[in-house]
């Protein structure tokens, strides 16, 4: 790297340029890590970042950077920050913003914009960034006056990280970054329309407690909101004191220790049979930080047909959006769960737990352990065993994501990092990078599909540059596995456009400066996993797996949760 030239001495110390205001405000807000990509109109900002005590990670594509900032936020609980230039740079953030928006991830995106006097003129690298990103952000705005800059940046972080979190974008025209104004670093927020409800209504909480005390067959159904609210400990206290089984959504995984007897693991389309049966038979469903997504509920009119529904959520708009709620409690899950636990009483519920135990015994997650081909589920179990359930797992989207959710048993929040709502293929590798940067000492593994990996594998170069010891397990079956499964089941085995010829991933990894391993024999799996875990450099393990393996059980789209396909197949593997 060439030597840094000295920063030119500034004549007017009290006046600050917009770029300086942005950087100083970021530092004041505690930002020590950012992700982003350079470009023409953001050069004033990058010049100030050159000397700033902020670790800057440059991805190979803005989408990758956006996922990194997202996963950094998911792994650390802090707000992720992504910076991109105008036009194409900003447009490349859209998928990443939408991913973060759907999963309520706190993130601030800063984008460059053309000079204010050129806006609307179709200038070079101009895009209507606030227009394009409005539906995929919690809030966005363009700063047209440098005097509004500090306040707007502070507001962005406040909005992103509070209430139901989400991505906030601030668009920064280059002249605003260059112009100067006095700045004392104490701008106050001005958000008359942004009010936060944190404490739950005491009477609603009492009603929920009463319902729990009366219930014979209750189920706690918890989502990512519990993790966002840092309320896993409060959830454990409630589940144990009231003695209620817990099922988790994909994004809720990690909020309850899956080794505990109350855990029903994941529910929904590819959830456990015991979770789905329990929900369908329950007389009380206590939803916490979950939003009754269609992948969870299946057919709405037959969802939890006998259950009264309690819904604890910070977003009033989530209440009764998809499913009618009997007892809504709006507020922060941590506070509400604490208050609720005070009012609930222990109930043995022997018959209920007995029934659940029978379902668990009859329908565990299974795969054919006698197959000659490597089963993806086996790799996940082996990784889980060798990492003592302690690794941070990132995933792409598809079959491998569902197997990861089924076969890796998580112990604590922020261990599972996956694109749930939007289902963004290509999320896994940049997510692993973002998570590793947030947690440098953790073992971070990307369980990835071959085609999810194809979408963002260029970011392997980023991992190599920053010497991140991430591990990528590719479940290489040549297919877009989940699409192929649907084509097999619902389109008469017509595998239209779901097969691609893949490169030799181990060679690609080596060419990019990472370690590459190819595994095609069952017997080699434990040794390959051990080697991968021992590597200090980024490592790609390309597992050639059973090409036409299916994810079971499966609730076909539009069916009730209890109408699961694949149960007899699973039983036959016992």
């Amino acid at each position, binding site marked *: 790297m060439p030597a840094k030239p000295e920063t030119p001495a500034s004549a007017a110390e009290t006046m600050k340029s917009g770029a300086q205001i942005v950087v100083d405000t970021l530092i004041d807000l505690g930002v020590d890590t950012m992700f982003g990509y350079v470009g023409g109109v953001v050069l004033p900002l990058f010049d100030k970042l050159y000397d700033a005590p902020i670790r800057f990670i440059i991805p190979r594509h803005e989408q990758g950077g956006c996922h990194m900032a997202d996963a950094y936020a998911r792994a650390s609980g802090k707000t992720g920050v992504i910076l991109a230039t105008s036009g194409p740079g900003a447009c490349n953030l859209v998928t990443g913003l939408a991913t973060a928006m759907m999963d309520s991830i706190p993130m601030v995106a800063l984008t460059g914009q053309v000079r204010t006097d050129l806006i609307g003129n179709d200038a070079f690298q101009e895009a209507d960034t606030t227009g394009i990103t*409005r539906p995929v952000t919690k809030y966005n705005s363009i700063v047209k006056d440098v005097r509004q800059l500090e306040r707007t940046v502070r507001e962005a972080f406040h909005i992103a990280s509070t209430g139901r979190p989400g991505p906030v974008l601030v668009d920064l025209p280059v002249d605003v970054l260059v112009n100067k104004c006095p700045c004392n670093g104490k701008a106050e927020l001005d958000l008359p329309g*942004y009010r936060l409800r944190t404490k739950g209504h005491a009477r609603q909480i009492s009603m929920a407690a009463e319902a729990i005390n009366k219930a014979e067959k209750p189920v706690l159904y918890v989502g990512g909101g519990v993790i966002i609210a840092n309320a896993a400990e409060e959830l454990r206290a409630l589940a144990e004191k009231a003695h209620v089984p817990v099922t988790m959504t994909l994004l809720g995984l990690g909020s309850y220790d899956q080794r505990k007897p109350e855990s029903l693991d994941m529910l929904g389309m590819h959830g456990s049979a015991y979770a789905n049966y329990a929900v369908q038979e329950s007389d009380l469903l206590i939803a916490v930080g979950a939003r009754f997504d269609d992948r969870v509920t299946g057919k709405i009119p037959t969802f939890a047909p006998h259950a009264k529904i309690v819904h604890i959520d910070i977003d009033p708009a989530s209440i009764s959006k998809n499913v009618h709620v009997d007892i809504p409690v709006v507020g922060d899950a941590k506070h509400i769960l604490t208050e609720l636990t005070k009012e609930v009483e222990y109930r043995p519920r022997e018959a209920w737990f007995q029934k659940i135990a029978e379902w668990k015994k009859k329908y565990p997650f299974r795969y054919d352990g006698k197959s000659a081909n490597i089963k993806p589920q086996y790799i996940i179990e082996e990784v889980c065993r060798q990492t003592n359930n302690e690794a941070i797992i990132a995933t792409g989207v598809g079959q491998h994501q569902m197997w990861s959710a089924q076969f890796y048993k998580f112990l604590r929040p922020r261990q599972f990092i996956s694109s749930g709502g939007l289902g963004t293929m290509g999320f896994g590798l940049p997510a692993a990078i973002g998570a590793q940067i947030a947690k440098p000492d953790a073992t971070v593994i990307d369980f990835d599909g071959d085609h999810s990996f194809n979408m963002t594998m260029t970011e392997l170069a980023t991992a190599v540059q920053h010497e991140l010891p991430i591990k990528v397990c590719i479940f290489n079956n040549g297919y877009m596995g989940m699409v192929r499964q649907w084509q097999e089941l619902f389109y008469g085995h017509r595998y239209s456009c779901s097969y691609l010829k893949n490169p030799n991933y181990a060679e690609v990894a080596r060419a990019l400066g990472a370690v590459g391993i190819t595994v095609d024999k069952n017997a080699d799996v434990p040794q390959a996993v051990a080697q991968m875990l021992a590597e200090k450099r980024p490592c790609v393990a390309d597992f050639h797996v059973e090409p036409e393996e299916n994810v079971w059980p499966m609730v076909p789209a539009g069916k009730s949760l209890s109408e699961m396909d694949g149960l007899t197949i699973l039983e036959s593997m016992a």
Partner: protein
Amino acid sequence: MKHIISALVENKPGVLAHVAGMFAARGFNIDSLVVGRTEDPKLSRMTIVVIGDDRIVEQVRKQLARIVPVVKVQDFMDKPVVARDLMLVTIAVPPEKRPELSTLIDMFRGHVVDISPKTLMVEVSGPETKMEAFLDVCKPYGIKGVARTGTIAMPRQGSGEE
């Protein structure tokens, strides 16, 4: 069911786009939407007429309240309110029929605001049903053009609100 929703919003660029975008993205239908300044220069009032069942309108209200620059949202359904539309209508009318038409205009408490050899432009305000009724009676003459504001509304004082 027709609901009149009144939203106080920050008077900032992008707010209308945000509100309109939310309606489009979530598939809610807007019957009319009127934006205007209020007594506070920092705030505008949006009056939105939405057709939908209670569940949908409840979602509309909550999703509106969720938008950061939206300060306050009220549903005027079942509340005593004054609701008014303003309409300009250009009517084809030969000079000999003007007296006849001006009787009608008086009955609707309208005003003639422009006149040409073959047309009159009339301003009418009132509840939406009155606009419809006026258009019905003018139809036989020939309506050349209509411009309407959509509904604005304020709660009646003494109703316990505001």
